[in-house]
């Protein structure tokens, strides 16, 4: 390959944030028509680099070349002008807008022969919808331009993002963690689309931390760690283990070490549970299962199949319509969260910043968020600051929370340490059942490893664990039994060692287990 083949080059990119060197003289390039993986842990600097390429940040040092010519990208507009498109990890879509409105936003008259400058130019909704239909047919991305984005499944929303880039004639596409929210089948579909795009001349930067996917779809791999490029690899000549150690700088255990489980009596019984959403439709319909002491029951399923609502109903955050929930022998159906917590529930919530923490509170207060009213933290109605401080010091030490002190606000901690605060708080009580919903989402490998270990050790102490995760690998690694949810129903419950990954994938996609 010659230099001429490089559609994009970044040389010596450096970016400092207060206290952090996010990119340290990073070199990166992209060849025409290839899929180039950028691999790294959370916080390795991948997103910073991409945000620089896309003009959201401006680099402190370094140069960017498109087709060999140096260019200056200081705003997303510059990037778009140079044919760069980006699909962000958190979709940059406006939920209340239609698909067409989202796509035309910022490029309202692109479909016209001659672009209009006037800010008051009328929106040509029909023409844009037509153009979107054409594009979607061309790339095999089926989509309804008039649908409200917020009402679409995430997989479809991702297509909207891709079309948004293609609509702007992008020939360089940055995909930031695109598979995080998809089913294995949807991921396959995404890969098919990616290959289709490259066949049509689009070059793709694929950011991920999932090793399997990197090996499956990419042409080239670059690995970043703590702001630097630490190496590159050819997917045909490397393996997961090698990539993983490059990523974290040491050998990591990809499999969780655990003994066979030794389950006892039922700690959680769920019987014919029905939960409705705001539109009064069943989102959980007739779910029954139980969790035994000393076992991990994993709930697999694509996001949005009722897992969130199921967990919310079990933990008292959402009313139940019908059915019965028994926790440690107590009927807790429709009880408020406090009653359920007091019955011995620990809950690691799906959205840690929204539910699990009060970001503006110091770490110490977050450590007692749901026990503040109990002895020794409260005596009567007064809070015992000393007891709170002691508890914080103890938990910070025991759970290895990396924080300057117990009094910095939780917002100042990294995602992994925020999660540790929650885990520390929830496991510091005497509990019968742990419900962990997406406990490792967005965390670095080290933290994932830590949390997995905690879950297994809890299990071995005889606590029941209900694990909900969209990561099939996580479910398979930790669970003793696996339940699969599809459209609000549990379609199968099987022993973890008696099922294949492919079989689970099929069930998650709705194929009948019988």
């Amino acid at each position, binding site marked *: 390959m010659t230099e001429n083949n490089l559609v994009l080059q970044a040389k010596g990119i450096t970016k400092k944030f207060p206290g952090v060197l996010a990119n340290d003289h990073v070199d990166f390039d992209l060849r025409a028509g290839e899929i180039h993986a950028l691999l790294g842990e959370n916080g390795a600097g991948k997103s910073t680099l991409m945000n620089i390429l*896309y003009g*959201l*940040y401006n680099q402190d040092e370094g140069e960017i070349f498109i087709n060999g010519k140096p260019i200056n990208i200081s*705003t*997303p*507009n510059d990037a*778009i002008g140079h044919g760069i498109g*980006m699909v*962000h990890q958190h*979709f*940059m*879509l*406006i*939920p*209340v*807008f239609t698909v067409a*409105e989202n796509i*035309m*936003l*910022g*490029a*309202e*008259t692109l479909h016209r022969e001659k672009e*209009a400058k*006037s*800010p*008051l*130019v*009328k*929106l040509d909704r029909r023409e844009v919808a037509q153009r979107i239909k054409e594009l979607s047919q061309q790339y095999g991305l089926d989509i309804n331009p008039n649908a409200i984005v917020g009402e679409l499944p995430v997989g479809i929303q991702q297509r909207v993002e891709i079309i*948004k880039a293609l609509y702007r004639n992008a020939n360089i596409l940055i995909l930031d963690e695109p598979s995080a929210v998809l089913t294995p089948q949807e991921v396959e579909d995404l890969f098919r689309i990616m290959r289709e795009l490259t066949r049509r001349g689009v070059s793709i930067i694929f950011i991920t931390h999932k090793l399997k996917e990197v090996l499956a779809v990419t042409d080239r791999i670059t690995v970043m760690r703590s702001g630097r490029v630490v190496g590159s690899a050819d997917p045909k000549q490397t393996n997961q283990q090698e990539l993983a150690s490059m990523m974290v700088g040491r050998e990591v255990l990809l499999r969780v070490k655990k003994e066979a489980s030794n389950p006892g009596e039922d700690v959680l019984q769920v019987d014919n549970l029905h939960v409705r959403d705001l539109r009064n439709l069943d989102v959980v319909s007739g779910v029954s299962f139980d969790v035994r002491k000393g076992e991990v029951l994993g709930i697999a399923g694509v996001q949005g199949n009722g897992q969130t609502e199921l967990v919310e109903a079990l933990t008292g955050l959402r009313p139940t319509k019908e059915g019965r929930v028994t926790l440690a022998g107590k009927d807790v159906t429709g009880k408020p969260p406090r009653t359920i917590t007091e019955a011995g529930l620990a809950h690691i919530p799906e959205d840690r910043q929204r539910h699990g923490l009060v970001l503006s509170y110091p770490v110490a207060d977050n450590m007692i968020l749901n026990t503040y009213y109990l002895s020794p933290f409260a005596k009567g109605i007064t809070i015992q600051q000393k007891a709170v401080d002691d508890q914080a010091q103890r938990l910070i030490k025991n759970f290895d929370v990396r924080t300057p002190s117990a009094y910095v606000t939780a917002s100042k901690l990294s995602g992994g340490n925020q999660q540790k605060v929650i885990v520390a708080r929830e496991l510091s009580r005497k509990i019968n059942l742990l419900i962990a919903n997406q406990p490792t989402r967005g965390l670095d490998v080290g933290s994932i490893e830590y949390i997995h270990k905690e879950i297994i050790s809890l299990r071995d102490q005889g606590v029941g664990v209900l694990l909900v995760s969209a990561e099939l690998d996580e479910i398979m690694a930790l669970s003793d039994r696996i339940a699969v949810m599809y459209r609000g129903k549990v379609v199968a419950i099987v022993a973890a060692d008696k099922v294949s990954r492919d079989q689970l994938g099929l069930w998650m996609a709705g194929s009948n287990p019988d």
Partner: protein
Amino acid sequence: MDWKRFGFIALIIAVLFTIVVLIGGKSQPAILIISSMLGTTIAVATPLTLGALSGIYCERSGVVNIGIEGMMLAAAFFGWLGAIYMSSIFGFQALPSLLVGLLIAMLTGGLFAALHALLSVTFKVDQIIGGTVINILAVGVTGFLNRQLFFEKGSIFGGQVPHGPGTFTTIYIPIDKAVNGLCGLLGSDCSVAAKAASDVLSQKPIAMAAVLLVVVSHYILFNTRWGLRTRAVGEHPKAADTVGINVTFMRYANVIIGGALAGLGGAYMTLESIASFEPLMTNGRGFIALAAMIFGNWTPFGAWSAALVFGASQAFQIKLQLFRELIPAQWSFLQNAYVVGMVPYLLTMLILTGIIGKNIPPAADGVAYEK
């Protein structure tokens, strides 16, 4: 548009009007009562509508604006001051003086809004504080200057209020002639109705502009590039940023447009409704406008109809006082001004309980954008 909401509001207005007609119908033709009440309704609704539109531009772009009251007050003062300067110091005719005043009022509103934008967008100060600063500042500045210019003997006006240019005059819409002509062809006499129709339609320019601006704002917000971008910035600024929209610019621009509209509302008070300025003359209208905006679910037509409810309630109250002697004994509570005075506020609270649907603010309203 939200037809349920609209229908409900129309029903309230109809009920208020009907009660008055039932009471006063004995002494005056219903059509005259209605046209008079419509006149009051429009007069009261005009500054509220403009204030609410001001809020809509700000909040659709993601900036909460509780400073509408201050912007209106300052604009009312400076607009009036400008008009007086033009007519009494430079000797301009009434109309050009008023137009200059109008322009200055809108600029004043825009300037105060720019201060709000500076605080909320650039300094990322909590937006409630920015609005509060503007409200207090406007009271102080207008009160202080009003005194210095029109009372202190040494001032340019010699310590008294000069003969100003008056107010804008009514634009006559000759609908009565058309109706009369039509009725003439049909061989009937409908001159009363014709006059009533003409009285309602013939308004002063700012009142007319307010209605026009409702339509225009609806079009701009929902059918143009500017509106799409404005709403995008108010819903999800980061998404807008990633497609190359300058969030800061859009927010500044919309807040300043909002300020200019609030300024127009202020101009209505001193250049169109009455020809003088009084300290504190906005009397909480900015806050009622804010209520109208929320009541109208952040849409121009919704806010306008809410403003009309406030206007109709006011008309209801005035007319009931005028027809006091005619109120039947069993309805005597309607004679008490204080009881009637609570009506519009109770109605608003009732509506906000969600009986006509939930109010959904722009998702990023009130949140400073950090990259």
